[in-house]
């Protein structure tokens, strides 16, 4: 295909939201560049090993692949269990239009977490070992099993979208009969591993900075995953509206935002009470990068978006909702990076910054996530009222 034809096709694309060709073209090109660099980095990662391609060391054995690709990836996918529980268990039926986008996000999220894990593990071909080599005392073992089981649940929850597209009505009906048990299993498995990702750090009381080390870490990880799960629903609904033209009834997202106020409020109160209880407020006035990043995580990522969500005029505006949700997502990511990376700098005596390979592979996974979501949203009955009764 020659250039001009490609360009003309681009112009003819029915773009909603008043997008002009250059901007759409810009995002596509950026995605292509990130994918190309990511694929090159992938080859070097597996050919030369972790030492040659990452900035990981004996002092910093966990980097951005653990902190972002795994810890954030699992959290950002929490909308799946949150929204399905709200709709199917707690009877908030007006949220049904966002159940499928949330399940799709979760399904893609967990798939990408597994992909990220393959990059990070020193011996990725042994990834199946927790299936047969058991250590029930290990938090990581429990997380591995929960993630495996929940990925299966999500595959089943996602499958009707595919079945309906293919016109396979019988399997779709079978899965639909299993909805309640699947949702319940999803909630329980998610409660376990979302919190256990925080429990991972409980065994490091002397290494993790006292601003973040708390025996409440599992509770914080769980509650913040619910908050970011809700924020992600608003975030991706806005993007789907801008880029794909999917329009959601405003009151659905407003209702999610109100839920966000409650969850963020509970989260903030837990964090503050925990700080008081452990007497770590004086640490906020100590020099170093820890205090500012800690404050940014809580004020920028929880307090401000909570106040925004609580404001009726912000909830009324799509852009306002999107802005507040973006703050929650960024604050959540910062919070996880703080626990897994910033919190260890003082004790390791080493400052870590990811290598270009680590960054480009992470970016590649994010781009793959966006692309897969876009493709699914375009070709599968994700939005709209397909069988939504």
């Amino acid at each position, binding site marked *: 295909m020659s250039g001009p034809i490609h360009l003309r096709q681009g112009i003819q694309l029915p773009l909603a939201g008043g997008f002009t060709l250059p901007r759409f073209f810009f995002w596509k090109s950026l995605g292509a560049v990130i994918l190309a660099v990511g694929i090159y980095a992938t080859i070097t990662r597996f050919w030369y*090993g972790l030492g040659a391609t990452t900035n990981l060391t004996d002092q910093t054995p966990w980097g951005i692949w653990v902190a972002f690709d795994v810890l954030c990836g699992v959290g950002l996918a929490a909308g799946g269990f949150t929204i399905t529980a709200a709709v199917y268990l707690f009877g908030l039926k007006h949220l049904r239009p966002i159940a499928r986008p949330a399940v799709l996000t979760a399904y893609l999220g967990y798939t990408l977490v597994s992909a990220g894990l393959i990059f990070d593990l020193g011996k*990725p071909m042994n990834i199946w070992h927790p299936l047969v080599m058991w250590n029930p005392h290990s938090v990581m073992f*429990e997380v591995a099993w929960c993630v495996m089981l929940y990925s299966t649940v999500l595959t089943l929850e996602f499958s009707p979208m595919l079945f309906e597209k293919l016109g396979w009505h019988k399997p779709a009906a079978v899965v639909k009969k299993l909805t309640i048990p699947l949702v319940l299993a999803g909630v329980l498995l998610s409660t376990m591993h979302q919190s256990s990702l925080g*429990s991972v750090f409980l065994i490091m009381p*002397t290494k993790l900075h006292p601003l973040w080390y708390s025996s409440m870490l599992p509770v914080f990880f769980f509650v913040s995953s619910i908050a970011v799960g809700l924020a992600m629903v608003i975030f991706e609904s806005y993007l789907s509206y801008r880029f794909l033209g999917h329009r959601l009834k405003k009151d659905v997202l407003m209702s999610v935002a109100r839920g966000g106020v409650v969850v963020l409020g509970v989260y903030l109160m837990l964090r503050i009470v925990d700080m008081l209880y452990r007497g770590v407020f004086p640490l906020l006035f100590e020099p170093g990068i820890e205090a500012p990043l800690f404050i940014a995580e809580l004020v920028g990522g929880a307090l401000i978006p909570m106040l925004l969500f609580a404001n009726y005029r912000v909830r009324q505006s799509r852009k306002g909702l999107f802005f507040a949700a973006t703050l929650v997502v960024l604050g959540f990511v910062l919070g996880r990076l703080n626990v897994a990376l910033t919190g260890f700098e003082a004790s390791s005596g080493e400052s870590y910054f990811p290598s270009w390979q680590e960054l480009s592979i992470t970016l590649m996974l994010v781009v793959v996530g966006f692309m897969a979501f876009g493709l699914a949203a375009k070709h599968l009955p994700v939005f709209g009222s397909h069988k939504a009764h």
Partner: protein
Amino acid sequence: MSYALLYDGTECVQCGVCLTACKMMWDLPEEVDVDRLSENTLTTLEVHDGHPVRKMCMHCDEPACASVCPVGALEKTKEGPVNYHPDKCIGCRYCMMACPFSIPKYEWSSALPRVRKCVMCFDRVEKGKVPACTLPCKVGAMKFGDRDELLAEAKQRIRNNPDRYYDHIYGEKEAGGTGVLYIGAVAPEKLGLPMTVPTEPLPQFTWRVLEKLPGVVAVGASFCMGMWWLINRRDKIREEDLEAITTGRSTAETGHELEEVQS
């Protein structure tokens, strides 16, 4: 019977024969930075202000590394050494994060890396032999034996020579007790031994929370099931009620259900 090693800093003449023996035993190349544990250096001999101290895996009684390993690649053996099974290892490096002494190192330069740390020459210990580092030590700085006996001997040495020793056995209580015990002329903090390590075994920090999980799951499951039942039933009755109103038909059963809800 759990074997342990006793290191006596007052007897050590800093000859380094233990280091050479370890390198030979494990066929490890010499490194420039000899004072730092690495994939090629499983034990070091540090000198702080003239006072020597060996650094190596502490072989904790309740090791953090073994408790966190999802596949049991690290294992506290009944003989005492904390052994490593590279064929099980998936390379998650949780052991390196969890170790309060920051002992496990990684073969970063390998495409399929292993964790490296002192395993107290488990293959030798299993056959009743002394670890390679301890065998050539002829000055009595290293002693291998039953942990309880070594502990008693360490206490005896301190009691017999109170002027010579600082009165603390590092490893007796640290991390809940370790398989390497240190005595010497100065306080352990002056030898660079980490003093923040709690005396409670580190796996307890996780277990205290993790053991509550089955309870949380049970309560959570019944709560969710209960909510589903309540709400589903309410909706169903509302529908029946609506149907009754629209069709102008009021069956005894529907009426009964409604009464139940209102009371």
